[in-house]
């Protein structure tokens, strides 16, 4: 009991964790179909793409930046992996690694423009978002790319030891990002430059280099998300990923990462992602009208963040 209390009061993610439990309790009281192992596995499977995107962009946001090009990067990388694995021309690994490299390069492009031009990242990535969408359309000639390698489909819909592969990717990405952020010097630098860029620079942190790296991380995970999405729906689509950046950024913020940079956790992001995923799933299960779904979704998100704020204040007083 003591530990439980400590968890809720000490960890920065306690508030959103509480909110997540509340919505879960709400949905399971409304339908018996919610709290089943298959449904929970369905939810994890569905959130994997958003989770992987959100993990990557958490670094960017903690470092005080933003990446609006995520959705377009997903589309470009989704199309690239589809083109590379069409008609079995190359092996699966070449397609996957080629796409990850492409994602890294596109992320680096974001980073280089941000660092060199000093233009706010909001504008830079808004620009690359539009460019990316265009590139995806050019590469695919505006059409969905189908007839993909069977082994790619396996990445999206198969399972290993009874666990769906997208969930394995989710867990691996979580572990990697969590360790990178909390256990390495790089992670400390990311928080430092997000907290106070000037001070970090004076203290000898290579600010530009770290900034470049965070955009590359974001690009790399966007590529992974693009691969999984293409694998899941078995086609590369130039219009895939529309608005994904908003879901990912929303998850990061719901998870308690400050939009002003400097602080945040990967665990928080994961909880934010699950929160959005659970609401999406639950609203379908209880069959809320399509018109009302969006209203309720938006309302719950605002409510969760407001409650989290209140909770943080309360915690200070304990």
């Amino acid at each position: 009991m003591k530990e439980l209390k400590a968890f809720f009061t000490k960890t920065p993610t306690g508030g959103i964790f509480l909110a997540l439990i509340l919505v879960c309790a709400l949905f399971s009281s409304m339908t018996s179909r919610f709290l089943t192992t298959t449904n929970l596995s369905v939810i994890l499977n569905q959130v994997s793409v958003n989770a992987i995107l959100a993990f990557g962009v958490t670094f960017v946001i903690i470092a005080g930046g933003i990446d609006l090009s995520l959705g377009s990067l997903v589309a470009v990388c989704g199309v690239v992996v589809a083109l590379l694995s069409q008609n079995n021309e190359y092996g699966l690994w070449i397609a996957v690694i080629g796409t990850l490299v492409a994602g890294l390069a596109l992320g680096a492009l974001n980073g280089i423009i941000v660092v060199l031009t000093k233009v706010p990242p909001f504008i830079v990535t808004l620009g690359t978002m539009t460019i990316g969408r265009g590139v995806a359309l050019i590469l695919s000639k505006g059409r969905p790319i189908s007839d993909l390698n069977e082994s790619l489909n396996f990445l999206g819909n198969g399972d290993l030891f009874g666990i769906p592969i997208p969930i394995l990717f989710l867990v691996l990405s979580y572990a990697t990002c969590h360790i990178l952020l909390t256990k390495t010097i790089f992670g400390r630098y990311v928080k430092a430059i997000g907290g106070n860029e000037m001070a970090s620079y004076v203290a000898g942190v290579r600010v530009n280099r770290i900034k470049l790296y965070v955009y590359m991380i974001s690009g790399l995970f966007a590529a992974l998300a693009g691969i999984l999405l293409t694998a899941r729906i078995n086609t590369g689509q130039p219009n895939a990923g529309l608005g994904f950046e908003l879901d990912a950024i929303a998850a990061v913020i719901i998870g308690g990462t400050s939009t002003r940079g400097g602080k945040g956790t990967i665990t928080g992001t994961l909880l934010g992602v699950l929160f959005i995923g659970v609401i999406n799933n639950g609203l379908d299960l209880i069959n809320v009208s399509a018109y009302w779904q969006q209203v309720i979704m938006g309302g719950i998100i605002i409510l969760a963040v407001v409650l989290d704020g209140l909770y943080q204040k309360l915690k200070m007083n304990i």
Partner: protein
Amino acid sequence: MKLKYVLFAFILFVGFSCGEKKSDKIIIGVSMLSMQNEFIQQVADALEKSAATNQVELIIVDAERSSLKQVEQVESFISQQVDAIILNPCEFEASSPAVDKAKKAGIPIVNVNSSTKSKPDAFVGSDDAESANMAMELIAKKLGGKGNILMIQGYMGQAAQLDRERGAKTVLAKYPGLKLLASQTGEWDRAKSMALMENWIQSYGDQIQAVFAQNDEMALGAYEAAKSAGKNIIIVGFDGSQDGLKSVQNGQLSATVAQQPDLIGEKAIEASKQIANKQTIPAQIAVPLKLITK
């Protein structure tokens, strides 16, 4: 330094004015709803192909789903004094000003595929409600008039979604044995519809007998989800897109209602050419639909 800019501007100016030489060919301005949609893309391809054989020149622009942009595009067609305009409207109400403006400027305008509140000189396309009717009738027949159905809708509030819903519901009203378990939006998107179908399989499981999706993309998403869950469900799509047709051929989707983009494009070019040449044409040019089954 300054001289350089002046020179540059001059070259630009000369360059542009060279390009503006008017040919004696008929010029048609085309504003399409969204080139990111496979079906619209097919109509656009057909327009271009038919323009080449009919010796007319096309200026095709993409409204990117924005009716405001669409109106602006039509305004610029008017100032370019094109001979006719082909409009693939974004919205029923909001794209209407484009039609009004063209008519006021005396430029003939032909609507393609969806309609606007203001009446154009001609409409070329198929009736969405009637086609949804065909799809639902097929499901009713396959289920023997009795069973549970799910409907995946397009973007809520768009003309295509409203018409297809209306068409489907008239059939449902006709067969009291058919029950609509749920209907939600899949936003015309394959991934979204796959997630929706997964959720439905969780809540309705084996009760689900058939799915009507308002386009092929969403039908294919539903199919992927059903396949992963090992469920055998009748899924009927809409549009007859390349992927959709292939899937019907492979016995995955049960059927799709094919609009005929090639024919729509061809008839639209013919109509606007005739109208630009001051010939009279019928106000409604219906392009027939085909129910495609294996």
